[in-house]
């Protein structure tokens, strides 16, 4: 595969639903009014209280990957309607609306890209796309990503943000948990690092499959992470949930994640890990950002 100069996924701060627009934004946690440009420069973290705004897949991608290094895989995969599912809306209609809203075809973008000087296989979930839910396409894309990482001997990074399995594809959605986890069981035999980044929120079928199967699990500060949603739990146990329940810090305390990371440090942490795993650098990518072909050549047979 050749490197592609794709500008499609480069973040240009623009208005999008759920994301602050205009000159000023309001922090969802402390209600302070923030200067939008400053907020974006600060990785969309409130400079006053540290609240991490949710990022779309494209925003996350542009924060982590070097410009023009992303090459998307399986962009042609699209959902069908295996159950002919219809509640107040038909499933294909919901997909279409989500596509229009997000500019994405599905709830995850997968591909290869460069973080710092390391080439990685990477997946970014998009929560605005039907809650980042996993159905056939998401499962298939994650599977193919894992397989490609294994074949090309690339480290794997998946940034999750998902409410879980997508109801509209019924049992097929549930089975994507099995499929992605099975793919990982083969990848993990190759001794390549898989780093899972859990962001707000990561629950249900995604947390109970590939997201929790990584060699290193990083939780983003303040993220809600768990199996069942807090409301379901509250209804079941009929008691008040503990303070900070299911928050990243709570999971760290209970031994469920390796670390809690502030968004502004995420890239540095990943780079440190790659270095310690002896992942080879893509040589001089920063000094020589134009020559795509050379980048590709310097990259063959690496491991």
């Amino acid at each position, binding site marked *: 595969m050749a490197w592609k100069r794709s500008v499609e996924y480069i973040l240009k701060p623009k208005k999008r639903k759920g994301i602050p627009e205009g000159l000023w934004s309001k922090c969802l946690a402390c209600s302070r009014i923030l200067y939008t440009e400053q907020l974006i420069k600060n990785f969309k973290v409130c400079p006053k209280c540290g609240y991490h705004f949710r990022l779309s897949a494209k925003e996350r991608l542009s924060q982590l990957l070097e410009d023009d290094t992303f090459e998307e895989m399986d962009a042609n995969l699209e959902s069908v309607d295996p159950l002919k599912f219809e509640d107040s809306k038909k499933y294909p209609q919901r997909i279409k609306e989500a596509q229009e809203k997000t500019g994405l075809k599905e709830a995850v973008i997968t591909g290869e890209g460069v973080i710092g000087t390391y080439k990685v296989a990477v997946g970014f979930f998009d929560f605005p796309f039907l809650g980042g839910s996993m159905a056939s396409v998401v499962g298939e894309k994650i599977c193919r990503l894992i397989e490609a990482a294994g074949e090309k001997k690339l480290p794997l990074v998946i940034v999750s943000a998902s409410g879980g399995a997508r109801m509209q594809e019924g*049992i097929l959605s549930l089975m994507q948990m099995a499929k992605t986890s*099975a793919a990982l069981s083969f990848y993990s*035999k190759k001794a390549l690092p898989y780093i899972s980044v859990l962001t707000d929120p990561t629950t249900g079928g995604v947390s109970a499959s590939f997201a929790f199967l990584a060699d290193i699990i990083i939780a983003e500060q303040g993220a809600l992470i768990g199996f069942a949603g807090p409301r379901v739990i509250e209804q079941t146990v009929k008691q008040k949930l503990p303070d900070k329940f299911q928050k990243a810090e709570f999971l760290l305390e209970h031994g469920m994640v390796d670390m809690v990371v502030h968004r502004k440090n995420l890239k540095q942490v990943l780079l440190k890990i790659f270095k310690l795993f002896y992942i080879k650098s893509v040589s001089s990518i920063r000094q020589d950002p134009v020559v795509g072909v050379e980048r590709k050549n310097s990259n063959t047979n690496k491991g």
Partner: protein
Amino acid sequence: MHIKELEFEKPIIELEKRIQELKSSSSDEGFDLSKEIKDLEEKVNDKKMEIFRNITAWQRTQIARHPKRPYTLDYIGLIMEDFIELHGDRTFYDDLAIVGGIASLDERTVVVIGHQKGRDTKENLKRNFGMANPEGYRKALRLMKFAEKFSFPVITFIDTPGAYPGIGAEERGQACAIATNLKEMASLTVPIVTVVIGEGGSGGALGISIGNYIYMLEYSVYYVCSPEACSSILWRDVSKATIAAELQGITGKDLLKFGVIDGIIPETLGGSHKNPEETAKNIKTTLKKAFEELCSMPTEKLISQRYEKYRKIGEYSTI
């Protein structure tokens, strides 16, 4: 949980009652009512056929949850010999919502694991209505690793409303426990055969149901989201569970069509609780046949057969 007779079964039960009455009056009072009885018996059979052959997904769910339905330990007793239950996850405690142990299936030592519901309130408190905590999944994994060590094939029985959504379950890593099982079962070096005997409730069911072959009992169901939960999410109204059950495609027939399961094991008309022995016999036949094939498979093939089965699941377009 208190219903013994399901609503849609009432016409059958009425007729059966009438037959009983006729029978007792003919013996008490010496009338010859044999013809009437015979007619009614035929009518009952017709009615049964009519009702159970056209059963809806929601009615199936009700049978799958029937309080008299045989559970894992019942089937173990009916199908296997010399069962020794093994307890605990060696880390925290013994989760009784999942049981497991070693037993003999027709001279073949197997490791058998399954969700276990309680028969009454007291037992259900102990068994948490078959809703496992992380320790249940970890116990199951411990037993599967044990099976691997001694080359015993694994049988899992699925019957749970779901993994327990509790505070402790989250604190101790419910998601991680289930995920780990999915991954480890995918590459287990011994055959795994799974039978959904009642309710296949979402991730909690999936957590012990990665197999070379997956079967469903005729009236069992398997879903990503219970009909009630689905209904309340979609319509904020639990009463539309009937529609939700139909929409989601939760029956054996649906799952067979999508390549999720490999076969449907027949039950006695109306459900296995009407004749547990008969259903158990059908399960046993299926398991024996599966192991005859799987136990002679080279390990590599066994693992690739299992992986390919899951790898294929999913529907999408590639335009």
